């Protein structure tokens, strides 16, 4: 809850593995598209020497990225291991989307990939970028993304393999109340969920730029609904572009804390 009018802030080190991605999801404002046929020259993923020699104090390391077309999974496991040697903070690494990609490309079982991540030092599986667990929405906005049921299976498998999965609740004008209810029901049935990240849709730079960003009060009402359904589940949100008043509002509606990036490194 709000402490003297101030919301809690968690300092985050954000590590981007690569911005290259071939999926072309309509909601994405992050990736550099890679053509499906003949990927051609693609910028390499982050190299170990691109991690700075020191960084500001962090309480969470987030490793996220697009979908690499050049580096194998072991390359990124090594990256996680190197980061683990430098910090004792929780490391949230990759997501079900990336694991499914590496599983399909390398033909290795998902539980094996999860074990490698866990042994390298990852503590959490990230929630992904736009995971509405409703197949019609997924097929329309991200047809190459794994189906909702597969996402849920990987999240549960992660928990069984010692990596706590995180969930994502994307707030967007094209996800109506009924769809949001379906999504929350599917997501919050995962008993081992470590936390939920609430992500307001950012239309700028996406194929959905004709839509407006969700209003702060809509975000607040979704947070209230998650809090109602799971009273003790931590709920986080990126602090980017939210002012002090907005933080106060959201924390008073049930948000646990904001993630504030102290340093972002990438290729």
């Amino acid at each position: 809850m709000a402490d003297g009018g101030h919301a809690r802030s968690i300092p985050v080190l954000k590590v981007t593995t690569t911005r290259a991605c071939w999926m072309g999801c309509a909601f994405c404002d992050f990736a550099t598209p890679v053509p499906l046929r003949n990927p051609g020259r693609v910028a390499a993923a982050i190299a170990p020497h691109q991690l700075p020699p020191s960084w500001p104090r962090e309480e969470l390391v987030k490793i996220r990225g697009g979908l690499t077309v050049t580096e194998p999974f072991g390359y990124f496991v090594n990256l996680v291991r190197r980061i683990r040697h430098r910090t004792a903070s929780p490391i949230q690494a990759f997501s079900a989307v990336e694991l499914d990609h590496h599983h399909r490309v390398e033909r290795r079982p998902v539980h094996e990939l999860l074990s490698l991540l866990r042994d390298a030092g990852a503590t959490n599986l990230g929630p992904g970028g736009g995971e509405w667990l409703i197949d019609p929405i997924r097929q329309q906005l991200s047809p190459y993304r794994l189906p909702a049921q597969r996402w849920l299976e990987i999240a549960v498998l992660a928990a069984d393999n010692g990596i706590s999965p995180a969930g994502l609740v994307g707030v967007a004008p094209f996800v109506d109340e009924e769809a949001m209810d379906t999504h929350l029901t599917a997501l919050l049935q995962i008993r081992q969920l470590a936390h939920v990240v609430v992500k307001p849709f950012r239309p700028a730079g996406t194929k959905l730029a004709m839509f407006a960003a969700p209003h702060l009060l809509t975000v607040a009402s979704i947070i209230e609904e998650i809090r109602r359904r799971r009273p003790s589940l931590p709920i986080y949100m990126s602090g980017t572009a939210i002012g002090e008043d907005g933080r106060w509002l959201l924390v008073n509606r049930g948000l646990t804390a904001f993630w504030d990036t102290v340093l972002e490194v990438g290729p």
Partner: protein
Amino acid sequence: MTQPLYWVPTLLLPAGQDGSWHAQRFLRWHGGRGHVVSGGPPPSGPGSRATLVPQSGQVWHAALEALAPDLDSGPVDLCLPCPPAPGTEIWQDLTRAVRRYPLRRLIVKRPAMTPLCQIDDALKGMTEAFAGAEIWLDWRTIGQEAIAYLAAKYPQVQLDNVPDDGLHQLISLAAALHRPLCLTDFSGRPPVELPAPAQPALPRIPVAPLHHAPVKHQWL
């Protein structure tokens, strides 16, 4: 029916300017509805008027500190910095003003560095102490996020001084609050309900058949 949220386009004309030309065009752009606050004699025409100095037959748009006990006045739109709490000096001035003057609106402004929780407490006090008074929140000084919080918590308050380029945010706020949005002024003419903008359709993403992920296989 849910209490509408009002959009009152407002034009401020400083003293020393004949604002008729500006006022005419401003009102025309807003379908003949709008509120003109002028430093000098109010321009004629449709819409509503207020003046920055007291003038006979006009609504006085006054700051709290400008009110003098011996000043006679018609109706007043009273602007005040958010009073910290009952019992303070500003609060006592406000109480005296409410008793002394025929107040049309109380327009609450936010002084710099005032935390939202303080405005919240003050509004709670005001809505209880001055029940029945029309309380309006100054859009420009209070800020978007605080406006959202306060408008949700106090459905009886309205928003003042919303600039034209803030209209899309006002529309979005009205939709989030499930309240109709009406264009109006203080001329006594009925408000005009503004229709909600149409929601765009989701685009179709072309899908090519894909049998394997498009990766370079040199490391497999």
